[in-house]
């Protein structure tokens, strides 16, 4: 039964699957039979009901969006981030084939580690002539400052990524090695999580090897690398949210349980590395770094780097911190090295190299190379020591360009290699309802585990967007796939516990909050609140635009518009008589127009930046709310019609409420939560004061009172107490002084006072300046006499000004005390 269905649906999907004859077909053998590794998957897929594929694709797309999986593309119109593209057809490999690859990969990592140990140590390979001196001397990846810096246990590489391609002969070969800060393992994991969720049945039945064990091994070996007797502190160092793979840094930090830090979060004192937290300096034992080699230390490596940690090289030299991968590991990424590896393997490991590299010749000259020259058929030119140059396909160049390249090579032979283009193998990818062949490259990952290395059973498969494109890269487009390594036996559930008899190490709660994270959370609280204020203000205005408005509605709209004019949100020309049509357009612009700061779209952008910067501190559900908010509020870049605006604003208010609900119910009451909430309280107070001042400036008629209650979400309470009677005094009382109203100023100040009591102070028993400041404001508010204020706009304004200035001082003092950012400069 199953095989009949399989035959039928597979035949349908595979109608358009015609890989070119000269390449290797991953799916079918030359006789046209489906290869063994793909049979279980195709059988399973054949069992799904009609329309299943489209549904699954939708849920995958939704999951990717909700997880916020992105890849930054430089210079793209989509700007900051591009959604990650994932094809639901996994790339399948059999257990025995994988076992062979595994052995070759581990050997390669051991070999590159040994090359690094020699070049950064005795340089015997240079003296013996096995490695040309120029390959080291001309290599910008050779960091002179790191020579003689011996890493713990002689280990340079903790993570090694290898780009593999399968040639027409069916043999795998290595296109490139990534050794300084390899990316992709997190994307592979994310692909796995999504695909296994969308194809649960297939995943189970195909007995796919699990990835968790690989990450557990890496995590343990990083901890074990620490030279400390206590609980080791491992951090993940990221260049920051602008990096192309920042998503992955945050993702891995969360998955591995290491704090995500930027260079400015770390400091070197007494040749040791510390994390700057709210409570002071906490020692760091191991740094899993995602910043490139030279950016890691402006003191000894690259003076213009603002991403690194001054003094890091020296701390590593002193043996007080383990940097993984070791600084300088980028040396062995050089394509020029490839042709020397077979001889180096024999010399350093006493083994034949198991996994060949793509045939490569260094243009500089004599070596153990493939004897390629620029004129060879299928020659690809690459920089000898890596870099951002796109590979040049020499045969495809014009005669004039070929001459130009010949001249360039003659002048700088050291700088280039010629590589034999590898005809990539083809694997099926979905295009609508049919499978089409696409060239694939597999990025495999090797990580340290115990004394040795393990390979991730899977990896990141990428394919190019068309049959012809010879280049596969995320920057170029195309897509990615989950990689399924089938197992022969039952799949062992992965346990993170070590086998019996060993001590189980308990994870300490991540109490350390880096100052930068506190800073970002504080502003996240402020912007979430600022957005809510703005949305409520806009909604109050837009709701009164309709033709059915009562007389009150018109008067209130006029008052609101006056307020918005004096807040600087609407131009002066709206100050007089309200012009319905022009006003509508102006209000829509406040939602959508991107150039103006302070409008909804701008604030959503800031929220996106801030949530991205503290991604590792937000729960998945909280993250999902923000992802949805971007979709709800951004309107896919389209300018909304006026009648759509109320719905947009309502949705945003619900999203924001969901966020504050998450914050209230789900966040541990640590410093992270406190700073988020302090930001919220300060902003809510500031917004309230600003709106009141604007209301005063526009005349403070009774017409403004109902909208003010609405913006402060206090209409119900007010009505219950005072029915429909609008008096300045009673409204002021409810919104400023009433301590039980969670929207009142008094309530915010009380919350602030509570928070201040819990923040770390320099000396026990001594109040901090910000504590005194909050107290002073509370007292001023308590001393206020509502009947006097309601009767005297001048006195009211004076109080509002005084309170507003106090809040600015509190914010400044918090910044100075807890966030004061490390500003680096070179002298």
């Amino acid at each position, binding site marked *: 039964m199953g095989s009949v269905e399989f035959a039928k649906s597979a035949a349908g999907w595979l109608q358009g699957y015609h890989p070119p004859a000269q390449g290797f077909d991953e799916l079918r053998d030359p006789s046209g039979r489906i290869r063994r590794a793909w049979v279980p998957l195709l059988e399973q897929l054949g069992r799904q009901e009609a329309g299943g594929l489209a549904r699954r694709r939708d849920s995958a797309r939704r999951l990717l969006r909700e997880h916020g999986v992105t890849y930054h593309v430089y210079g793209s119109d989509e700007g900051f981030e591009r959604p990650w593209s994932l094809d639901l057809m996994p790339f399948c490999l059999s257990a025995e084939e994988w076992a062979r690859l595994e052995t070759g990969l581990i050997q390669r990592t051991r070999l590159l580690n040994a090359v690094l140990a020699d070049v950064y140590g005795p340089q015997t390979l*240079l003296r013996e*002539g096995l490695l040309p*001196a120029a390959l080291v001397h001309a290599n910008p990846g050779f960091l002179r400052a790191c020579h003689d810096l011996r890493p713990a246990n002689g280990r340079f590489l903790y993570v090694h990524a290898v780009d593999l391609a399968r040639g027409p002969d069916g043999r795998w070969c290595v296109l490139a090695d990534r050794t300084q800060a390899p990316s992709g393992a997190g994307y592979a994991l994310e692909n796995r999580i999504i695909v296994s969720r969308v194809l649960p049945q297939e995943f189970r039945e195909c007995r796919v090897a699990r990835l968790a064990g690989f990450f557990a091994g890496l995590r343990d070996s990083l901890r074990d690398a620490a030279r400390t007797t206590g609980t080791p502190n491992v951090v993940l160092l990221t260049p920051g949210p602008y990096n192309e793979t920042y998503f992955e840094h945050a993702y891995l930090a969360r998955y591995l349980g290491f704090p995500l830090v930027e260079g400015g979060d770390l400091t070197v004192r007494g040749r040791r590395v510390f994390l700057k937290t709210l409570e002071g300096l906490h020692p760091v034992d191991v740094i899993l770094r995602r910043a490139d080699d030279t950016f890691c230390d402006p003191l000894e490596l690259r003076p213009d780097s603002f991403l690194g940690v001054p003094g890091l090289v020296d701390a590593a030299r002193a043996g007080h911190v383990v940097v993984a991968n070791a600084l300088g590991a980028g040396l062995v990424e050089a394509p020029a090295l490839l042709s020397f590896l077979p001889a180096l393997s024999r010399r350093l490991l006493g083994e034949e190299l198991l996994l060949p590299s793509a045939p490569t010749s260094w243009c500089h000259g004599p070596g153990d190379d493939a004897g390629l020259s620029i004129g060879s058929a299928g020659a690809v030119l690459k920089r000898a020591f890596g870099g951002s140059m796109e590979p040049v396909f020499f045969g495809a160049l014009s005669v004039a360009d070929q001459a130009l390249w010949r001249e360039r090579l003659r002048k700088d032979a050291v700088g280039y290699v010629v590589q034999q283009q590898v005809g990539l193998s083809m694997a099926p990818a979905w295009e609508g309802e049919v499978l089409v062949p696409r060239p694939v490259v597999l990025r495999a990952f090797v990580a340290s585990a115990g004394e040795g290395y393990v390979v991730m059973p899977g990896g990141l498969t990428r394919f190019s967007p068309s049959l012809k494109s010879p280049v596969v890269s995320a920057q170029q487009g195309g897509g990615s796939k989950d990689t399924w390594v089938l197992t022969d036996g039952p799949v062992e559930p992965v346990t993170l516990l070590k086998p019996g008899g060993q001590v189980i190490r308990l994870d300490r709660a991540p109490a350390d909050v880096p100052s930068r994270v506190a800073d970002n959370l504080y502003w996240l609280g402020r912007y979430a609140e600022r957005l809510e204020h703005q949305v409520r203000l806009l909604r109050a205005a837009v709701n009164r635009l309709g033709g059915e408005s009562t007389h009150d509605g018109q008067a209130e709209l006029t008052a609101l518009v006056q307020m918005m004019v004096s807040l600087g949100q609407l131009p002066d020309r709206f100050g007089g008589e309200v012009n319905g049509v022009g006003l509508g357009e102006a209000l829509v612009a406040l939602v959508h127009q991107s150039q103006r700061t302070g409008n909804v779209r701008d604030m959503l952008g800031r929220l996106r930046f801030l949530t991205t910067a503290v991604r590792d501190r937000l729960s998945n559900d909280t993250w999902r709310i923000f992802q949805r908010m971007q979709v709800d509020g951004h309107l896919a870049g389209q300018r909304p019609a006026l009648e759509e605006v109320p719905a947009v604003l309502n949705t945003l208010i619900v999203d924001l409420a969901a966020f504050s609900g998450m914050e209230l119910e789900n966040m541990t009451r640590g410093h992270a939560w406190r700073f988020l909430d302090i930001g919220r309280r300060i902003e809510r107070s500031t917004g309230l004061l600003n709106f009141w001042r604007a209301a005063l400036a526009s005349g403070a008629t009774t017409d403004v009172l109902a909208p003010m209650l609405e913006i402060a979400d206090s209409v119900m309470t007010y009505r219950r107490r005072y029915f429909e009677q609008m008096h300045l005094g009673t409204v002021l009382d409810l919104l400023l002084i009433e301590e039980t109203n969670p929207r009142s100023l008094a309530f915010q100040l009380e919350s602030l006072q509570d928070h201040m009591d819990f923040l770390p102070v320099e000396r026990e028993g001594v109040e901090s300046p910000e504590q005194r400041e909050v107290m002073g404001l509370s007292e001023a508010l308590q001393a206020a006499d509502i009947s006097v204020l309601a009767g005297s706009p001048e006195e009211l304004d004076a109080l509002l000004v005084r309170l507003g200035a106090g809040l600015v001082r509190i914010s400044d003092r918090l910044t100075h005390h807890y966030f004061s950012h490390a500003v*680096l400069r070179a*002298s």
Partner: protein
Amino acid sequence: MRYRITHQTHYVYDRDVSVSHHVVQLCPRDLPSQRCLTHDLCVRPEPATRTERIDYFGNRAVLVTLETAHREFEVIAGSLVEIVPRLAPAEGLTTPWEEVAARCDAPGWGDAAAAGEYRFDSPMVRRQAAIGAWAKASFPTGRPLLEAITALNTRIHREFTFDARATSVSTPVEEVFAHRRGVCQDFAHLMLAALRTLGLPARYVSGYLETLPPPGRTRLVGADASHAWVSVWCPGAGWVDFDPTNDVLAGLRHITVAWGRDFGDISPVRGVLVGSGHHSLRVSVDVEPVAGS
């Protein structure tokens, strides 16, 4: 010849600097033609850590860290150095320059391969066709290496104007070449770019030069400065030092402190600060000849 050298570097910051890290490379090297008899390095304020090491190029480096708030940072290096005459190789008898380049390209290990450390691009000096073409006029086929370099040394001195206001410590070689002005650091970088483009190993040397007062005037204390020149690898003769700023071979008045691929490898005092605001810098160098050799 004996010299007492005092090199003072004084930073003043207009705001508190909370932490600063510095690398100091002010200790003259020991060489066949030079001996450093005494060396003192005084750092104010008292650093939290002070570590000494020999860097990759064999120079002494001192790393200091200041970990409490400070508004100034001062380094005073005092050295007593003895210089003996260097052997001047017979220029006309040195290896033709292309042969030297070819020897560096040959496979296998040896002096030539080791000197290769100094023939490729470094962060501040990139090989460039235009500079190579300009230099080539002094390098006709078969010309002995040192004869060609002497000619180039003279040309830099003749065709370029010494102008302390034309450049800063980070001016690229291209700009120096285009404007034909600069200071010793620029001329050294320019010469390195020229030689390396021709495939020859050449390194950057930092040090001091004894300046002579104008006739009839007394020596001004502290009026000297750091100096920089170029050292070229010559088979048989080893490293030979040329001073393009003064169109001379380095001699008894040149005191070598350190060498590297370019200024960035061995700048005398460099650092990274945590803090905001601006700084002012005062440097004074005194090279005083002393009796007793």
